[in-house]
């Protein structure tokens, strides 16, 4: 009984993806005749080749991949820099720092003050606006800090007695021991950037810097279109359908390939985050 329910749940989770995949690989005539359910009919990959030929989509894909790498690296660095000093109980002002950080979790100024800040910092329409403002998540930092707390003090003290600097201790003791957590946080940050679009919607008007999700949203809303070069010179509605499916499908593949391998670790991280709330 329980097994049956769980299988049903799995089907509900996977069904839309399977349907989408089938559509993206089907030919137009079957799509127009409403005959594609969960298995592609008239199998062909023309939707994907069309998408790949579209310079706008490719550029956005590459730009988003680049953004994701830079943001993930920067965010991990910032989280580590923030979390590490705060585990030293001797550090004066630690309480103040913690309060400063906690307040930002419960109170934020709001959309418009943020917008005006970006304006004054000359970050509007600047590619940096997609990198810098989101480069530290308090929630992720707290997860990392909790993990650092779990590392025995004796390791640190031994290194301190040997005369290691705090930077060396961080680099040689804490980072190697925290690899699983750092990998998970990297996943969280990377997913956040890869999936993010609202910051671009608000702060970025230049189309060449649109992250992938915003471009896809515009494609779904028919604001942008993938350029279709058919022999007749016009696109059929069916082709547009399968192209949309291909666009959506293709942009999710990178994440779906990574997350199952990190499952063991992110469960641990979510749990740490919840306990330390």
């Amino acid at each position: 009984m329980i097994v049956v329910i769980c299988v049903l749940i799995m089907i509900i989770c996977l069904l839309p993806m399977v349907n989408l995949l089938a559509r993206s690989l089907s030919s137009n005539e079957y799509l127009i005749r409403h005959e594609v359910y969960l298995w592609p009919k008239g199998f062909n990959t023309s939707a994907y080749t069309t998408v790949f030929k579209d310079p706008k989509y490719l550029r956005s894909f590459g730009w988003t991949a680049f953004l994701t790498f830079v943001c993930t690296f920067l965010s991990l660095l910032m989280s580590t820099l923030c979390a590490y000093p705060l585990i030293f109980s001797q550090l004066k002002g630690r309480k103040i720092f913690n309060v400063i950080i906690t307040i930002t979790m419960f109170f934020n100024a709001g959309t418009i003050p943020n917008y005006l800040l970006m304006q004054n910092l000359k970050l509007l329409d600047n590619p940096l606006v997609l990198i810098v403002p989101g480069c530290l998540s308090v929630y992720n930092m707290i997860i990392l800090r909790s993990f650092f707390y779990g590392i025995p003090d004796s390791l640190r003290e031994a290194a301190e007695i040997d005369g290691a600097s705090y930077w060396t201790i961080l680099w040689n003791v804490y980072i190697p021991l925290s690899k699983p957590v750092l990998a998970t946080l990297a996943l969280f940050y990377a997913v956040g950037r890869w999936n993010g679009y609202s910051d671009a919607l608000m702060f970025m008007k230049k189309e060449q810097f649109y992250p992938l999700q915003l471009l896809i949203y515009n494609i779904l809303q028919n604001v942008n279109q993938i350029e279709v070069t058919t022999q007749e010179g016009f696109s059929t509605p069916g082709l547009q359908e399968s192209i949309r499916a291909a666009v959506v499908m293709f942009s999710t593949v990178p994440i779906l390939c990574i997350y199952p391998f990190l499952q063991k670790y992110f469960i641990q991280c979510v749990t740490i985050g919840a306990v330390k709330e």
Partner: protein
Amino acid sequence: MARARKQEVQKEKKPLTKEELWIYVKRYWQLYLLLLAPMLYFLIFKYSPMYYVLIAFKKYSIVQSVAEMPWAKNHGFEYFLKAFKNKDFINALRNTIFLNLLDIIVGFPVPIIFALLLNELRLKFFKKTVQTVAYMPHFLSWVIIYGLALQVFSPNTGLINMVIEKLGGETIHFLDDPNNWVKTYIGLGIWQSFGWNSIIYLAAISGISPELYEAASVDGANRFQKMWHITLPGIRPTIVVLLILALGNVLGSGFDRPYVLQNNLVMKNAEVISTFVYKYGIKGLQFSLTTAVGLFQSIANVFFLLLANWFSRKMGERGIM
């Protein structure tokens, strides 16, 4: 040992002499250096926008600095009054509360039930597979989910309506009809988050002592009785904390989910505060009004969080603070 620690604490509390301070700085300056970048980040991107909140009480002008702008009428509260006279805002406020409450009532129990189900699975491999599949939607962006929803729910070509058509039923407009839209919105929210949210409950369940279950078995309790009398009470603190956070956020609204899912046909049920602020503020350039709305929302959020926390304390639970 304890005494030694106490002495240490007392020593720390004494004000430092110049010399001691120098030793202290010499020893710990590296740590402060590491903290410099994160603290600058918080200062610039989290605290300095709070200054612009003043715009809520002033008449915004693009050529003046915040300090130079004249105060708004009604002792500065002109724009708050205006907001509450604005039909669109009242609609957004109502929808925000309504959708969030529905999310809690319908959506909150789902991950708990799912975690309880998973806990009953004995086959390790199967359990892991179910988990992996259930976590998948969490990693999809709302744009992608919207794309999926368009494909599956579309009136003519969508999978579900194709099946309904085959069975001789009538086409359902999932995304274009205001009432159906609410159901779709809630349903997609649950679909996206139930698996992920179950992680915390699963962790809480794994923390329950196995001895309790063994004792119950000896007493002849069946599966359901064990679930009801051991597992559920065991995860009650977790449930309470998450419920407080959810209730505290009853006036909050994410931007991604409502914004991508809404369309012009369903605005009367779909406009929420965050999308209202985007449209009136960033697109409509009514900065004072929307800053006032944002400030109202932030303060209300803190208020509701404290209220929920206070209430749970009253009920004898631990609370979050």
